[in-house]
């Protein structure tokens, strides 16, 4: 006999069925495999990229025949040779690598106090304001944002006009390497702050009070206490910033005035301008390799940071 719906609500019935299904699909004897089952969807999704990487890997071993615009039938390492030997690629790679490191350092430099203030301020209004200020720039497309910068930083922009008032002649603030780095910092700042905030929240305020009572001024409290303890956040944020800026395309293209290409721009050129998919594929793969090695090295040196906060594992 079945209980009345009031005694046995519908949601319970549904849950009972789901529970039985789950037990069939994944019996409790498979417990050990559970984390892998949970990881599976993410692994499969990223697997789409890996499938793509296989295609790209295949293309990287073929050269372009400019009389037919087809890729060669046979495999060759010619593209890799080209990438490693031509100084142009070294220039661009060096610029991207150095750039992404500078961007990471500067971004963290600004993100840290921002996140710190946001986490520590007693005023929830200020906290909300800082948070909203972080999110809004996302909603202005790159192109329009660049136009905004032109109005502010252009030769006849607001800044130059202001400088003109004090007798400084207009100078080029855009379309150079610093402008690209600046743009990347601005683009990365929200990500870095969002990743730092949980790590800073996890540092008890009392530790700072303790350091003060023990004779450390705020600078030394930062250096000896807050900074070392926020390392998981810094590592997590740093990894995100360094990988995203290393592989960025839009900002060097828009704020670089065409002369400040990063690797992704060189890849774009090969795929889209010269139709040389082989070379583009080679550059892509090498960038992935460099990025992944960088990530691996950071993991080895500093741990995975907030990307997988160690916590108490079971």
């Amino acid at each position, binding site marked *: 006999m079945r209980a009345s719906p009031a005694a046995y609500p519908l949601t319970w019935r549904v849950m009972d069925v789901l529970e039985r299904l789950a037990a069939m699909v994944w019996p409790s004897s498979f417990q050990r495999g559970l984390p892998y089952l949970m990881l599976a969807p993410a692994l499969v999704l990223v697997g789409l990229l890996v499938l793509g990487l296989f295609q790209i890997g295949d293309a990287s071993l073929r050269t372009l025949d400019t009389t037919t615009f087809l890729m060669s039938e046979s495999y060759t390492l010619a593209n890799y040779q080209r990438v490693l030997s031509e100084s142009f690629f070294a220039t661009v790679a060096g610029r991207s690598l150095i750039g992404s490191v500078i961007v990471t350092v500067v971004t963290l430099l*600004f993100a840290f106090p*921002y996140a710190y203030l946001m986490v520590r301020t007693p005023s929830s209004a200020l906290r909300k304001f800082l948070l909203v200020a972080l999110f809004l720039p996302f909603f202005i497309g790159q*192109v329009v944002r660049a136009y905004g910068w032109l109005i502010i930083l252009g030769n006849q922009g607001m800044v130059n006009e202001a400088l003109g008032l004090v007798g400084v002649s207009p100078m080029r603030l855009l379309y150079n390497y610093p402008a690209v780095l600046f743009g990347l910092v601005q683009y990365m700042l929200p990500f870095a702050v969002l990743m730092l*905030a949980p790590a800073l929240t996890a540092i008890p305020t009392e530790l700072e009070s303790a350091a003060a009572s023990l004779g450390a001024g705020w600078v030394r409290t930062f250096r000896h206490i807050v900074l070392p303890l926020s390392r998981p956040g810094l590592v997590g944020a740093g990894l995100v910033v360094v990988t995203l800026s290393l592989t960025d395309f839009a900002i060097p293209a828009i704020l670089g005035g065409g002369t400040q290409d990063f690797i992704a721009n060189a890849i774009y050129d090969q795929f889209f301008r010269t139709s040389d998919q082989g070379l583009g594929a080679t550059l892509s793969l090498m960038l992935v390799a460099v990025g992944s090695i960088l990530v691996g090295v950071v993991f080895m040196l500093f741990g995975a940071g907030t990307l997988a906060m160690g916590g108490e594992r079971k």
Partner: protein
Amino acid sequence: MIDSRSKSIVIWAFVATALVMLSAPTIVVLGASFTAGNIITFPPDGLSLKWYGAIAQASDLRQAFLRSLIVATICTVIAIPAGTLAGIALAKYRVRFARSIQIYLLLPFTIPLIGSGIGMMLVFGQMNVLGKLWPVGIACCVINLPFMIWAVTASASNLSPDLELAAANCGAPPLQRFLYITLPAVLPGVITGSLLMFILALNEFLVSLLLVDARSVTLPVQIYNSIRSIITPDLAAISVVFIACAGLAIALLDRLVGLDIFLKSK
């Protein structure tokens, strides 16, 4: 806590700079959208709503916006389970090859977007599903997935394992344990992550460009394509509409769960 004056000054100096950096273009674009003139300038050249009128007329923009919403929704809907499960698995369990798995899961950030775009264009092409919106949603999900996973790990690592045991003890079978206890506990991370995923998908351009066709262009692609000769203030107006929607969403989120959750790892 009484902070020293020099500390406040230094911190505020950085924060103020950051705020200017973050907001200056937004403010300029916001102002420029109300211009009565034909070019984006700040301060605006007279005040009018004519560019808002212009975009209200443009049905292709509206459709593209709608498609972007769909794409962002698909992306978020996929990212929530995939990222949540992965985040919880990474934070709570000892996983073999965890480091390699993490490097693997960071591939979306180490592969340049063009590479991801071309790769997925070929993969989806092979599957013969290009031109539909859901592959674009999946693609947006894949390339930003680390954000979702990160947000969840940050919440889940502070989740006490006792909580699930307590639920088991209360008689909750595995699935309901997960649904009623684990999930709500990591909800702040899930919300943070979903919001980021949604926003990023709404704005995704480069990868979408390779996956859409003329019948399925999304808003960022539409905008990019339409500025082949001259940039007019209608783009500023679109941005402002975007910002307004975002502001609304953020206000809603604040009402529903409180914005402070972004600052808490618990």
